[in-house]
């Protein structure tokens, strides 16, 4: 079970060794309750602050010191219940039950206390050392909700703190509660007599020692928790048959409504707990945010709004400002006029070995190609994309987009949730492939990975291709239609061919918020940092490989191998080199075409065919490696082959079609 507990860091770093003198402090709760904000406030170090259910797939670790005691602080992925549905929830649950925390902070949204308190009960009955943090008090008070915290504390039997961590309210009280936490203090709740009887019947069969209270464990076994059943099977050994027997018998007796019974029991207990401790006044009139929210979800206004977001966020900000203004400045001025001439002059003087000269400042040199691409072209494009993406994410727009496109995405075997990885793919397909793990079924993850590899150009590639195609009127339209068509067609086909259960769509829609500059900045920087740690070395490696390839003649050999294929697509031999580069970095390939086009070697038809084929063609090395890591060898090699075949088939077909119809001629 431990292997599923993957601790993802935003930057590659050796895992922090946990010294036993350190106490462990865990944060748990639903998505969107401000867990990450609290984490940052406690540790002082920032991580991604997420407004989207599911993006906090990474688990952030940090440290803090309170009254001379060091705590290791761990932020778990959002979970709705102790009984996990998604892989992330399973990870969160397993960490919680296996790492034996010293203090657990359950963070809930004050506005939704009735809905979130049942999970508090589950955590209490698991025997976890719990402190309840009722967050977002400020907005709850504005809605007219009133809490009697001391009474709540008395009824629950655990420390309860009211807070608004975004406004820095209640942090002192939370710290005090952690320091003064008494692990002996435990509360107990009981369900209806018949349910209790069934629970103790299973519990009495358990003989092993577990980190979780046997009563809670029994309840989870009755709810058919697979990973826990597996664990109990291992711990109990021969005795497991007795446990299984008892569980099966009760599950059969209660087949009609076991899950519902348990939920209703918890609801009943929560109602009792909240009585007198919580009151709410009449409903308020809809706010400005509510009205805008309604507009984003109405297809008639939602799609135009989406187009506006795409136009201003992507086309204007990323395309014009990032890929235009900033790239021109950095590449044209900084590198073109200062850095490159300076480095080349320096190399002329000191680098007397030709191979070293070639390696550093030659055609594919580390400085002239690798660093220049990374800093002057990719950095501004990816940076502006991540700024736009983080702003949209922080505003809470994505869940609305998800519900808007759900019906369309169902046709291609995905559900609305998949818009996040798909949109992120336009920034970096590699990162998006990692994010596909937020999707629920393996089938969806495979389809999303395939579509990302095939039809979603990353921002670096997009920037170059947009620049490239703007030279030939109509080419951009043909290219866009081609990609959209392939995206839908392949999605449609894979929805029919990939086996597995049909996707289901359900999602919480958080309130629309004004993006907070600090959050946006932090998210952007975290992503940029990841991007540079993971991708920048590949730029250098790609440069080295290309130089080695050039010097040894391997490159020429590969190019000659591809040439006949190029001719089949009606392209000149020189394009082959662009395709080879394309595998190292998608945008290298596109930039290769750019050089050919500026030299007048391509006519509009060839340009379009080459751009379409290159966009569809194999993902870059980094994406392939991540695909292998996430989906395994078999699937990733399968996707590689499919994508390659499709790219050239479509290129071939498109060339014929364009020549036949005379479009773009």
């Amino acid at each position, binding site marked *: 079970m431990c292997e599923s507990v993957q601790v993802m860091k935003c930057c590659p770093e050796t895992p922090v060794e946990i010294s036993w003198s350190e106490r462990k402090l865990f944060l748990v709760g639903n998505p969107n309750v401000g867990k990450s904000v609290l984490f940052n406030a406690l540790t002082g170090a920032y991580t991604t602050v997420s407004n989207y259910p599911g993006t906090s797939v990474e688990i952030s670790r940090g440290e803090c010191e309170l009254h001379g005691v060091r705590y290791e602080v761990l932020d778990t992925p959002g979970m*709705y*219940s102790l*009984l996990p*549905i998604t892989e992330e929830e399973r990870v969160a649950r397993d960490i919680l039950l296996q790492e034996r925390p010293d203090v657990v902070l359950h963070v809930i*949204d004050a*506005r*939704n206390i*009735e*809905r979130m308190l049942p999970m508090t009960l589950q955590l209490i009955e698991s025997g976890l050392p719990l402190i309840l943090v009722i967050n977002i008090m400020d907005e709850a008070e504005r*809605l007219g909700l009133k809490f009697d915290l001391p009474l709540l504390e008395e009824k629950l039997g655990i420390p309860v703190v009211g807070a608004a961590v975004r406004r820095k309210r209640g942090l002192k009280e939370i710290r005090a509660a952690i320091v003064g936490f008494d692990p002996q203090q435990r509360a107990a709740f009981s369900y209806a007599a018949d349910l209790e009887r069934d629970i103790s019947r299973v519990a009495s069969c358990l003989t092993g020692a577990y980190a979780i209270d046997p009563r809670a464990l029994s309840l989870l076994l009755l709810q*058919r928790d697979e990973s826990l059943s597996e664990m109990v099977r291992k711990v109990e050994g021969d005795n497991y048959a007795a446990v299984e027997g008892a569980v099966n018998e009760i599950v059969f007796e209660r087949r009609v409504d076991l*899950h*519902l019974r348990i*939920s*209703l029991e918890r*609801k009943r207990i929560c109602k009792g707990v909240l009585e007198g401790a919580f009151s709410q006044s009449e409903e308020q009139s809809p706010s400005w945010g509510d009205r805008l*929210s*309604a507009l984003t*979800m*109405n*297809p008639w206004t939602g799609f135009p709004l989406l187009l506006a977001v795409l136009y201003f966020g992507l086309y204007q900000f990323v395309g014009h400002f990032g890929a235009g203004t900033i790239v021109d400045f950095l590449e044209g001025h900084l590198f073109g006029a200062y850095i490159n001439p300076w480095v080349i002059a320096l190399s002329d003087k000191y680098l007397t070995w030709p191979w070293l000269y070639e390696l550093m400042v030659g055609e594919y040199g580390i400085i002239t190609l690798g660093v220049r691409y990374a800093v002057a072209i990719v950095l501004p494009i990816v940076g502006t994309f991540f700024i736009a993406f983080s702003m949209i994410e922080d505003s809470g727009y994505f*869940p609305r987009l*998800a*519900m*808007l*496109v*759900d*019906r369309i995405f*169902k046709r291609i075997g995905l*559900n*609305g949730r998949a818009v996040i990885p798909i949109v992120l793919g336009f920034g970096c397909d590699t990162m998006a492939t990692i994010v596909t793990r937020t999707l629920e079924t393996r089938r969806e993850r495979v389809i999303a990975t395939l579509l990302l590899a095939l039809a979603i150009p990353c921002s670096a590639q997009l920037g170059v291709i947009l620049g490239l195609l703007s030279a030939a009127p109509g080419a951009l339209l043909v290219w866009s239609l081609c990609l959209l068509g392939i995206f839908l067609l392949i999605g449609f086909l894979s929805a029919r061919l990939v086996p597995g259960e*049909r996707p*289901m*769509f*359900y*999602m*919480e*829609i*958080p*309130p629309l918020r004004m993006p907070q500059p600090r959050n946006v900045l932090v998210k952007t920087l975290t992503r940029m940092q990841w991007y540079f740690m993971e991708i920048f070395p590949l730029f250098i490696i790609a440069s080295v490989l290309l130089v080695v390839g050039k010097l040894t003649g391997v490159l020429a050999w590969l190019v000659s191998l591809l040439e006949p294929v190029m001719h089949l697509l009606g392209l000149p031999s020189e394009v082959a080199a662009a395709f080879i580069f394309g595998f190292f970095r998608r945008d290298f390939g596109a930039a290769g075409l750019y050089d050919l086009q500026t030299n007048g070697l391509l006519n509009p038809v060839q340009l379009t065919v080459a751009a379409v084929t290159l966009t569809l063609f194999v993902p870059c090395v980094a994406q392939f490696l991540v695909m292998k890591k996430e989906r395994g060898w078999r699937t990733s090699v399968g996707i590689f082959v499919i994508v390659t075949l499709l790219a050239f088939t479509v290129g071939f077909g498109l060339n014929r079609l364009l020549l036949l119809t005379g479009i773009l001629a």
Partner: protein
Amino acid sequence: MNVSEKAEEILEALWIVIEEEGDNAAHFERLSVDATDAGLQELQRLAYVEVKGERVYLRPEGREEARMTVRRHRLAERLMMDVLDLKGAEGDARACEMEHLLHRGVDTKLCTLLNHPTTCPHGKPIPPGSCCEEARHAGDTGVVALTELKAGESGEIAYLSTGNDKKMQKLMSMGVLPGNRIVLSRTFPSYIFKVGFSEFAVDDELAREIFIRRRE
């Protein structure tokens, strides 16, 4: 007052010929009877039908009984199809046996359970009973799936009908629990509803599993 099963079959067939096919009487052949048939003689004794030559006429006295017989048959069909999941010839055969048991208010109970259906699984109308009229009069819409609500309507969650535990868990973890108040704000492209202060989106597959008691 109860007539025999055979007589019920005759009444039923007669009702269909006269009320739904627009004939004024039915031939013996159509009812699969002859003049000596015990069921037919029973109906004649009750003055429910009149036989002229080889044709059977429905008398006004027999109308109500015939109507209710058809109603019981079609309610039985609905029960087989909707609740017991028996379809096709098997369902029809069981419905034919079941209909004769739906006397003394059982039909009313069944009709309420099925939420006063208006058509049988074959698309034929089910003659409304007094329970249907009363429900209509009281404006009682009963319990309906979330998909039947219009945007802006609200109600109380009555129950979740899902055989799939995973679906059930998803819904329950979102606070979709019987007794909670729910406000539906959109039905297209997805169902958007509020429970408490949180808003959720689900597709129609999940929305079909949530049953709502409407509030006026």
